[in-house]
Each structure stands twice: as C-alpha cells, then as structure tokens.
C-alpha cells in the first residue's frame, strides 16, 4: 500500500510544468473561471470531468457572491454592530470558500490525483487562476 501525500505532490508539482485556468471576465469581475479545456490536459484527463470540476467551482463562487437576503442581513448586522460581528462570525463568502476547498480536495482525491494531476485552490493565487500542476 502506498499513498502519496499531497504535500509531496505539491512539492514536486511546484517544479513541474503547470497548467493554469484563467478567469473568465465575460460577466464582469465576478469570480468565474474559464471552462475551456486546456490542450495540455488532453491526454491526462477526460474533458467532461474537467469541465464538471470547473463548472462546480464557478457555481460555488456565484453562490458566494450572490447579492440576496443573506448578504443584506449580513451587511446590516455588521453595520449595526460596528463591524464587531466580524470578529465573531465569518462571512458568507468565507463559508463558501471553505466548501470550495473541501470540494477541491475531494476532486483531487477522487479524480485528479489518480491521473497524476492536482488542482490548486484559486484562493491561494488571489482567485486569478486555477493551477494544474502536471
């Protein structure tokens, strides 16, 4: 039985070639990543799997940035408490980010690591890219 630690994978990946999925700005500055299948991954992973991953991520981000009742309440509450609430409670966005991180890790374990790939959380790069160390 041998399993590879993601740490080791990341370390080696940092030196290896990487594929970057850039942001899709067609709808403004909302966080959204391009679903275009990079050519470098042609042979590594199925197109549908990749697109599913990216689309799920985009959905997560859209949910986090959605302007609705929850965000309004959050704002009012924060304002009312002179933003002291932020000391106690994490924002909705942060909660979604946690969900995303979990999702990415799950994807890595199930789909990408067996294929020798790895998805890095875009938040680590300022939400600019989704990197795929090859």
């Amino acid at each position: 039985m041998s399993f590879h630690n993601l740490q080791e994978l990341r370390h080696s990946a940092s030196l290896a070639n990487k594929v970057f999925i850039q942001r899709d700005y067609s709808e403004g500055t909302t966080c959204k990543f391009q679903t275009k299948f990079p050519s470098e991954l042609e042979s590594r992973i199925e197109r549908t799997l990749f697109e599913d991953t990216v689309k799920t991520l985009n959905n997560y981000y859209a949910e986090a940035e959605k302007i609705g009742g929850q965000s309004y309440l959050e704002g009012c509450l924060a304002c009312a408490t002179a933003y002291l609430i932020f000391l106690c409670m994490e924002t909705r966005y942060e909660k979604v980010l946690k969900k995303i991180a979990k999702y990415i890790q799950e994807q890595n374990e199930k789909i990408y690591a067996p294929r020798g790939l790895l998805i890095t959380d875009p938040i680590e790069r300022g939400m600019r890219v989704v990197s795929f160390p090859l």
Partner: protein
Amino acid sequence: MPSSGADSLKPSAFIPVCTAACLLVGSTSLFFVFTCPWLAVTICPAVPPCCAILFLLVLANFTMATFMDAGVLPMASEDEDKDDEFRAPLYKNVDVKGVQVRMKWCASCHFYRPPRCSHCSVCDHCVEDFDHHCPWVNNCIGRRNYRYFFMFLLTLTVHMIGVFTFGLIYVLHHMDDLWKLHCTVTLVVISISGLFLIPVLGLTGFHLYLVSRGRTTNEQVTGKFQGGVNPFTRGCCNNLEYLVCGPLSPRYAGRPLKKTAVHIHPPFLRPEIDRQMALKVRDNGLQSHDVQKKRSSAGAVELSDVKLKTPPPLPPKPDHGLMKSQVAVTEEVGHYTKSIIPVSIPTVPQLRPVLEAISRGSSPIPPEQLLKASDQPGTRSPDLRSESRDSPVKGVQQDHMPVQPPLQTNTSSLQLNSLTLSSRSLTLKHSGRHGSKSQLPNMHSDSIGSNPPPGSVPSSGLLPNHSSLSYDNLINSEGPQFLGQRGAPSVGYHPHFMTLGSDGTLIQRPSPHAYSPVFMGVTRQSPQPRDPSPSLQGLSSRDPSPSFQGFIQRDPSPAFQGLMPRDLVSQSLTSRDVPPPSLAMRDVTSHSLRDSLRDLGAQGLTPPKSATVRYDNFSKTIMASIQERREMEERDRMLRLQARSQALYGPDVGVYDIPSRRSLPPDNIRPPGSRGPTPPAYGSREFLMSTGILGYGIRSSPLSSSSTSSLTRGPKTSSSPLQSSSSSSLQSKGRSSSPAYCPPDRHTQPLPSSTSTLPRLPSSSTSSSSSTPLYATYATTKRSSLTYSSEGKESVALGTLK
C-alpha cells in the same frame, strides 16, 4: 494600515491619518463634552445618543477603511509567470460583457491585472477593484473596503453636519457668553467641522456619483469610460445595492495555506488517449514557398528560388523556348511591381549606360548594344516568365511581393528579349487593371493622344504609386514589346476611344504596336514633323525605333491575352497575332501607325532595348519631347485649320487660332533631363492623329471655347492626360473643324465625326484655359492618368453627342 514592507512604514505616511483621526476624535469628544449636555437639556435628550451612534459608525467605518485589506492580490509565484515574464505582451484584451477591456501586465506582481485592478505605488501591491489610495486612512481603497470607506464618508458627513448644526445652535443661544469655555470650545468645534465639512461633502458627493455610475475613482480620473460604455456598472440602483448589501470578499493575501494530505490509492487511472502533446506548428517560412508555388504553376521551384534570393539573382541563360512563359512571369511581376514594388529599378548593369545615355539626350545606343545587354541578364527572366505566364491572370496579389524583386530583375534581364513582348504588355494590363485607375487612364492617354508609350507614360512617370510598377515593367520587360502591348491594353480599356473611331472603326484598336511607346520614341526622335520618313529615320537613329521594331517582332505571349480578359482580349489577340514581323499586323491594326510601322519594320528589327531603355526617361524626357512634338504638330495643324476653319466656325475658330507660342507651354518647361523639343515624326504625327481622335472628344469642349491658346487647352480637369492627347486632339480638332481639311491620314477621317461635336462642346467645355498646363502637366503622373480617364469618358460622351 497594511504595509507591504519596511519602506511603506514611512512616518510621513501616518501624518494625514493621524491628523484625521485626531481631528475627528478630538473634535467630537469636545462636542460631546461641552455641547451635548446643553443640547440634551435644551433640545432633546436623544440628541447626544444619536450623535454618539453616528460617531461610532464613523469610527467603525474609519477603522475598517484604514485597516481592512482592500483586496490585495498576492504576487504570482514564479511558476505562473515563467512563460509570461519575457514574452508576454504588455496588454491582454479580454471581453467583459461585450466591451473590450485591456489587462495590463504588472511587472511587480507578475501577472496580468484583472479588470479594474490596479497597482498601488504607495503600498506596492495590486489591488482588486482599485479605487484610490487614501492618505487620510493611509490605505488603498479597493474591492473589500470600498464599502467601508464610502460609509465612512457618508457617516462623517452626517456627523460633521450634525456637530456643526448643534454647535451653531449652542453658540447662537450663548451669544452673550461667547467667550466662556463651553462657548469657545463649541466655537472651535464648529469652526473645524465647518471647515472640513466642505471638502468632505464634496468627496462624498463625488463618490455618490461614482457609485451611481459604477465607476471607481481610478477609472473616473483616468477617464476610462468617459465616452464609452462601462461594462462594470449594474445600473444606479443595483450599484447602490451592491455597495450596501454586497458580500464581503475574502482576503487573498496572508491566508493560511491549508495543506491537507491527500491520500491516493491505486489503481491509478490513465485516460485511453495517447499522450500526444500538442505540437506547435511553426511557420518556418514554408508558407511563402507554397504561396510562390501556387502562383506560378510552372517553374515554381525556380520562382520560389528566385524569390528567396535577395537582390535579384541572375537568371539562367534565357532560353527562347521559355520566353513566353517568362512573359507571363513578367506580367506577373508587373502585377507585383504595380501593387507593391516601390520604385526599384532593376539594376541591369548592361542597360545602365544606355539609360544614362538616353537621359542625357545623347544618341541612343544602338539597339544591338541594348540587345546584348538584355541578353545577358535575360537568362533569369525566362524562368520567371514561364512561371508567371502560367499564372498570368491569377494571383495578381500583393503578396507576390517577395517574388517581385527577383522577377523584376529577371524581367529586366529579359527586357530586351523579343519574346517578352507580351509580358510587358501584360504588366501594363495588370497595372491598369489592378492598379489605380490612374494607370488605365495613363495608358489610354498614351494610346490616344500621344505616342508616348501607353504603358510607359502612365506607368513610368505618371503614376506615382505605380510608377515603379510600370516603370519597372518598362525597364524590365522588353521595351518594344512592352510598349506595344501597352498600347493594346490601353486601347482595350477604353473602348470609347475605339468608338470614336481611331480609324473610323469600332473594332479593337489597332495593334498595340500602333500605340507602343516605341512610336513615341520614334516620333520623338524624328525631328521631321509630317514626314513619314523622318519617323523612320528617327526610328533608325533613335532607340525607340529599334526597340519598336523589336517590339513589333515580338509575339505577344498568351499571358498577355490572359491579362486583359475583358477589354483587351480582342486586342491581345490582335497583338498576339502580330507576327514577329508584325509590320503586316500593324497595318491592319493601326492606321496611323501603319506607315510608321512599315518604316520601322523596314529598318529591320532593332533590339527593343532602346525602347525599353527609353522608358527610363519616358517619364520625364520622353514626355517632354513628346509634348513638344505635339506642340509642333499642333501648331502646324492649327495654322492650317485656322485658315480653313475661319469661315466655318466663326467665333469658335478662335479655337483654331494659330497656336501661338504663348498658348503652348514654354519651351523651358521641360522635365529636367528631357531632350530638346523634337518635331514630331511622321509616325508620331500619325499616331497623334489617331490618338488625337480619341482625345478629340475630350478636347472638343475646350477647343470649342474660343481661345487663343486653344491648342493646348483642354478641360481643366483633364489637364495632364489631355496633354498627351491634347496635341493629338487638338490636331484632330483642327482637322475636324474644317471639313474641307483633309487630314493626311485616315485617322483624321473619324475626326470629323468627333469634330462635329466641337460646336456643341463649347458649353461642355470645362475650361479653355487649361491649355498651357496641358503640356506642363504632361509630365505629371497621376493627374494625367486620372484626367485621361476623364477624357476618355468625355470623348465617349462626345461621341454620343454626335
């Protein structure tokens, strides 16, 4: 206050924020201490609590604006930018809601800044949705803290208004105790609040405006969306909603990386797809070869080879068997040259001395010499010609440029090759066809009014744009052939001239040879005005004649035909049909030139080199000489006509006044290097007459207008082109004006028809004062061609008027 480094911790940076903080806190504190008690008692006890809450909000927002990460984008790690660092363009365009937004490469952070992102020089980091760097909070205002900043401004404004108002009330109620402590403090407080209220109010209003427009301060100041569409705005209401209710973006920088262990168990999956990395297909220049090969069906390899070569390589020994193909090449070259080649005279060393001699006005080098010269470099062209011939009509694209230089040189080598007759004409055709329409008119003007080589005149000098093209063609292609060919195409292009009946026949114009520049050269050279023999003599003595003969002898290449499908087909046929001895053909085709042609032919084939060489000067010297010759002839004609037309046309006869010298351009007006005026040779006269017929229509209007300088006058618009035809037209007009006047040639016969229009033309004459410039402008390139076309049109119209 975020700081990115030791450098950012400048003490001076904290002064504004400290000042602001002190002022805010201090003033408010004083207000609460000294003013609020009285307010609570006097006005309302709720006043102080409200003010306190308000002040609290101000502080909170101030703190958030000061200490909150504005949305700093962390620097890109090395692996992300290793490709972009050195080769990436500075800007990358991205489409945001249909609007092209430019993303700039941030040299400090090593990534392309997302839209609305900007790099703060004070903080030295890129900030998302960068608004500005506020010194009062010593922080960048960006995506994450803009709301707090805006709220800070709002609350501060309200707070300041409140403090000012209440303080004022207090002071007003304590006017008698103004210098008491409470009052004094309140006065100070209201003065401070009053003083800072104005800028804060202005700033608040400004940001309200920005929010409503969906812009950031950075965008407003830089004027990004001043006149365009802002793709980032959601509308005024939605913008406010987003501002107030929008989510708080997460922090990017300084996040703890959660490295979780990923346990991977076999089996390790591999996709079925073969590992084949996409290979970048680079263009290593093969495309050019392909293009070349496509263009030239024959000798493609050679063509490409030639193209690849840098300054024109010497072509192989010309093979006469390939000459025709080469002609096609030349025509192709002509295309290229026309479209692309700037003035780049192919360096034909052998021809240089000849050209120089001609330019100097010295006796032209015997054609034999020219022929020799041409033969030597001519080897190159055969290959090219063959190639071009195969694709004469096709691919006259600009992209043939690379082929041009070698082709040019090759063609130049083949210039004097008798077999390249068609090529030259083809080039002319192409130039006329593809080139600016100025070329066409030039050709026509040439063919019509003057003997100057239809191609040479327009191509060589008259067409600035295509001058190189045509000029090069002239130089490169065989002179006589080229000349003759050009005549044909030009004729074809202007059917109206044909209708005018150069020879009274609407058939295709006489063989191009009739209008070949050779005649021009011949006539030009021959001093005798009306004597056929002089033309011959001139021909013999001058280069054009030999070239012309050589030209005559050349058999137009099939490419020629291909080049002029529409108009010149017939003519090309005619030209092509011209046998090498061509004289017979000439007789059939060109009336006016018949004699001269015969004469020329009688003199034997002379290497066309002289003619081709002459083209070099056609633009200047030849044109000038031609003009002069025409003037002479016109003068003579006018003299005769005047006598005859006096009775016929009365006032209009003025048109036929003896062409005084004043009407003609001064002799000194001559392109530099041009030869002295030479009386038109017989051939030239014939030529002029025949061409004059064509130009007659145009002329008729100017001529009809009575003017002393009728001879040289023409439609104002068609100055230069008319010049070429002016002489001829004038002559023709002169002839036609007097029915009794029997033109010596047959060419004049059609004139009467055209001349009959003269009387009607006075009204249509554009201007009669354009005479003098006619000759002067003859040398002008474009104008002549352009006006020439207009002339042609006019002639057609005139013809119809009949």
